[in-house]
């Protein structure tokens, strides 16, 4: 056979077979929504608005990157929103405490960031441990911890709001509102987390084991994969993603309360699934998840940019667009 000419053809073909509609679909949906947004209100395309939209997607987006791994193994984590609230609360308390002795300095912020990472990792570890050692459905365990984390933050805030010390707030603010090379920092963080997630998922053993477990638990077990360890690690990873999201979130409003992060879990899971990851596990698409998070953010924005329909129906429009976005991907794939 003619090796040389076929190699190039094969490569092209391989590329095409790798890039299926399922991969492109979510991005097509993003573009379709952007066109819709522009049609409804040309302001949509303004730099300021687009920056807002993308920046907002960072929280759920970063959390959803972690959720991609969890769902890749065929599990679920409902506790992320509450965990974010709890982490925020702890960071604020910690900073307010440190600032008294250390003064308002970056050291305080760095220490709080460290705390957040530790808390996230430990929270994830607890979830993972109870799920794997107790052999309980992840749905139940994380429903439980969801309640626990939310209660704890309510308790810490005495039912009210935990507010960051004003002097700290000024110092910390740029982490959300600042830019680097003209790009908002949350967006950079989102991108970095996504790249790290993609490397982890597609380029490391860990990622491969995640998908193997999601595809077939027994096969993974028989392939000498330490299933419990990998599953626990996905929860720790999820916890760390929550911690990163929290670190960016706190400087935004400088406060935490019992409503912080409410509903983020559903948004994150929806972003993952809109992105093309299957709920039953075995496949996972990091960039799809990124698109999914952006889709969510755009939908919210579009609803605020138009007053054509009754605000009472916002939820309905949102629901329809979500279903439509997914439907769009599915049918175009078939053709």
């Amino acid at each position, binding site marked *: 056979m003619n090796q040389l000419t076929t190699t190039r053809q094969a490569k092209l073909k391989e590329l095409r077979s790798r890039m299926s509609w399922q991969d492109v679909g979510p991005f097509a949906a993003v573009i379709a929504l952007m066109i819709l947004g522009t049609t409804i209100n040309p*302001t949509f395309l303004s730099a300021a608005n687009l920056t*807002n939209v993308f920046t907002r997607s960072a929280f759920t987006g970063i959390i959803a990157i972690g959720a991609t791994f969890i769902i890749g193994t065929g599990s679920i984590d409902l506790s992320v929103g509450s965990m974010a609230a709890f982490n925020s609360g702890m960071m604020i308390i910690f900073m307010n405490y440190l600032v008294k002795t250390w003064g308002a300095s970056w050291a305080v912020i760095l220490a709080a960031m460290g705390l957040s990472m530790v808390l996230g990792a430990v929270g994830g570890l607890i979830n993972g441990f109870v799920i794997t050692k107790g052999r309980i459905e992840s749905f139940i365990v994380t429903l439980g911890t969801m309640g626990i984390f939310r209660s704890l933050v309510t308790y810490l805030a*005495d*039912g009210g709001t935990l*507010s960051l010390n004003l002097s700290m707030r000024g110092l910390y603010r740029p982490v959300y509102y600042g830019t680097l090379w003209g790009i908002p920092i949350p967006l950079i963080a989102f991108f970095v987390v996504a790249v790290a997630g993609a490397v982890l998922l597609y380029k490391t053993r860990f990622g491969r084991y995640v998908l193997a477990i999601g595809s077939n638990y027994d096969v993974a077990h028989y392939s000498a994969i330490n299933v419990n360890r990998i599953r626990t690690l996905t929860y720790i990873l999820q916890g760390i993603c929550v911690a990163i999201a929290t670190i960016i979130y706190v400087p935004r409003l400088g406060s935490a*309360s019992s*409503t912080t992060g*409410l509903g983020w879990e559903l948004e994150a899971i929806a972003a993952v699934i809109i992105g093309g990851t299957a709920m039953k596990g075995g496949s996972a698409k990091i960039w799809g998840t990124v698109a999914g998070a952006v889709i969510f953010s755009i939908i919210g924005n579009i609803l605020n940019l138009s007053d054509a329909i009754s*605000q009472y129906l916002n939820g309905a429009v949102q629901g329809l667009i979500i279903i439509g976005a997914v439907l769009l991907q599915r049918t175009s794939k078939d053709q």
Partner: protein
Amino acid sequence: AQDKVVIGVSIPAATHGWTGGINYWARVTQERLKNTYPNLEIILVTAGSAAEQANTLEDLYAIHNIDALVILPFESDPLTDPVEMLKMQGVFITVVDRGLTKEGIADIYVAGDNHAMGRVSGEYMVEALGGKGDIVVLRGIPTVIDNYRFDSFMEVIEGTEINVLDWQYANWNRDDGFQVMQDFLARFPKIDAVWAQDDDVALGVIEAVKQAGREDELFIVGGAGMKEMIKRVMDGDRLIPVDVLYPPAMIATGMEVTALRFVSNASVLGEYILDATLVTPENAHLYYFPDSPF
């Protein structure tokens, strides 16, 4: 224990700032009353929804055998029947904030006036803007209370040249307040004022306005009396010139008068209407409680 009087207190769970305040004041008052009147027992329960609150009423009666109930209803209508059930069992009823939809159930009614809150906000808005300008409104969650406030507000500004550019629900939530305001700012090049109705939402709005660098263009009217906001008013913040009081401490009023009914001969039956006071830099110090979480 025969002569011990049991008072049940049923309030919404601390799911946002204002209800957090309610919880705080209820707990503080519970402590105080218990310590002051040893023959009073006070059971405090919270609920996350109207249906759950109906459950807590059943439990207060079946388990704790209460003599009196102090309730801040989640919503007026769904709780009217369950409260009436207790009334028929001979329980003394105190209703706080949201009135029941049937006459004659409440022995004591401590009314927070949601209509007034909207009206006072609207009146200030008209005055401050000189009856002319473009504003945006951020509402709470779709409930009757929210409707009262909004409708009264709209009634006041009707006929003036104040134009509501758009309104959206911000769910009494800071993050939603922030996002909705971001989008309003992107959409409308000129906004003269914001009615945020709630101090939690107002805090989100402030950050969005700051981010857009449009602090000098507009002012914000919140509501409820959160300590941070009262502080800002006190300090003469240009962005937050006033706040409209809707004090969560009203639950304390309800509990105190109910307790009085059992520990003294004072006549307490009837209605107590709490004003929706306009907090201005002049009177702000009267409403500033730095120890409250709210």
